[in-house]
C-alpha cells in the first residue's frame, strides 16, 4: 500500500517537473525542475530496492552535476531570453507530433513488449533477499568488482581523458581573439593578463 502512495507521488512529481522544464523560460528554473525530477527518481530507486543507487543519484546528479549546470548558467548570464521565433518553420509542431507518436510507442512497449525481461515470478523477491542478506551496497560491489571489473577500469580511464580534455578546452592560450573581447570577457582578461605578462 505504501509503495502505491509513494509511487503516485513520484509519478506526479517526476512527470510534472519534467513537463515544467519544457515550459520554463528561465534556464535556472529549468535546472531547479530537473533537480526536483532527480530527487523524485531517487525515491523511485529506493522503492525498487536500489538504495546505493538512490544515494548516488542524489549526491552525484542532484548535487554535483546540477551545481555544475547552475555554475555555467550563472557564468554565461541568467538574464538572456530565449528567442521565440523558430528558424526552421514547422519544427516545433513536428517535434511535438513525433514526440506523441514516440510516447505511444514507449507505452505500448512498456505494457506489451517486456515478456523477454520476466525473470520469473519470484524475481522481485530475490532482489529483496539480496538486499536483506549481503545488503545492497555489498551486492553491487561484488558484481561491480568481479563481473564488471574491466568496464570499471575503462571508466577510470575515461574520467582522466575527460579531465585532461576539459583542461585543454578551458585553457586560454596566447592572446585573446577579437571574438573574446566582443563577448565581454573584460573582467576575466583582467584576472588573466598579469600572470601572463609576468611569464612572457
Amino acid at each position, binding site marked *: 500500500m505504501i*509503495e502505491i502512495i509513494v509511487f503516485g507521488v513520484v509519478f506526479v512529481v*517526476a512527470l510534472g517537473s519534467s513537463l515544467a522544464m519544457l515550459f520554463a523560460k528561465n534556464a535556472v528554473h529549468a535546472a531547479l525542475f530537473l533537480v526536483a525530477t532527480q530527487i523524485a527518481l531517487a525515491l523511485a530507486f529506493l522503492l525498487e530496492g*536500489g538504495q546505493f543507487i538512490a544515494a548516488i543519484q542524489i549526491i552525484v546528479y542532484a548535487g554535483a*552535476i546540477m551545481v555544475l549546470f547552475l555554475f555555467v548558467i550563472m557564468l*554565461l548570464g541568467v538574464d*538572456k531570453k530565449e528567442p521565440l521565433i523558430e528558424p526552421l518553420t514547422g519544427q516545433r509542431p513536428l517535434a511535438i507530433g513525433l514526440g506523441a507518436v514516440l510516447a505511444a510507442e*514507449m507505452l505500448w512497449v512498456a*505494457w506489451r513488449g517486456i515478456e523477454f525481461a520476466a525473470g520469473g515470478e519470484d524475481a522481485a523477491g530475490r532482489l529483496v533477499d539480496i538486499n536483506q542478506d549481503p545488503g545492497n551496497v555489498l551486492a553491487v560491489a561484488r*558484481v561491480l568488482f568481479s563481473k564488471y571489473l574491466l568496464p570499471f577500469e575503462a571508466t577510470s580511464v575515461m574520467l582522466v581523458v575527460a579531465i585532461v580534455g*576539459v583542461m585543454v578546452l578551458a585553457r586560454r592560450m596566447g592572446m585573446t581573439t577579437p571574438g573574446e573581447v566582443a563577448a565581454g570577457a573584460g573582467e576575466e582578461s583582467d584576472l588573466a593578463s598579469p600572470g601572463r605578462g609576468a611569464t612572457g
Partner: protein
Amino acid sequence: MRVAPEYYLSLAGLMFVIGVVGALIRRNAIVIFMFVELMLNAVNLAFVTFARMWGHVDGQVLVFFVLVVAAAEVVVGLAIILLISRNRGSSDVDDVNLLRW
C-alpha cells in the same frame, strides 16, 4: 502490495519522450543539455526497473556506469558550450552555424 514494473517503465518512457521533445524544441544549448540529462535519468529508471524484474543487481551497476559517463559528458559539454559562447557571444544553438555550407 507492490507496484507493477509496467508503471515504472511507463514513467521512464514518458520522461524519455519529454527529454526528446525538449531537446528538439528548445534553443538554449544549456537547456538542451539538461534535457539530455533527463533522457539519461529516464534510462536509469528503466535499468533499475529491469534489475528488479530480473532479481539481481546488474542493472544497478549499469546505472552506476551511466552516471559516470553522464558526469564526464556534462563536464566536457559544458566546457564546449562555454567556449562557444565566449567566441560567439551567445549559447543559442542556431547561432552555431560555422560548419554550414
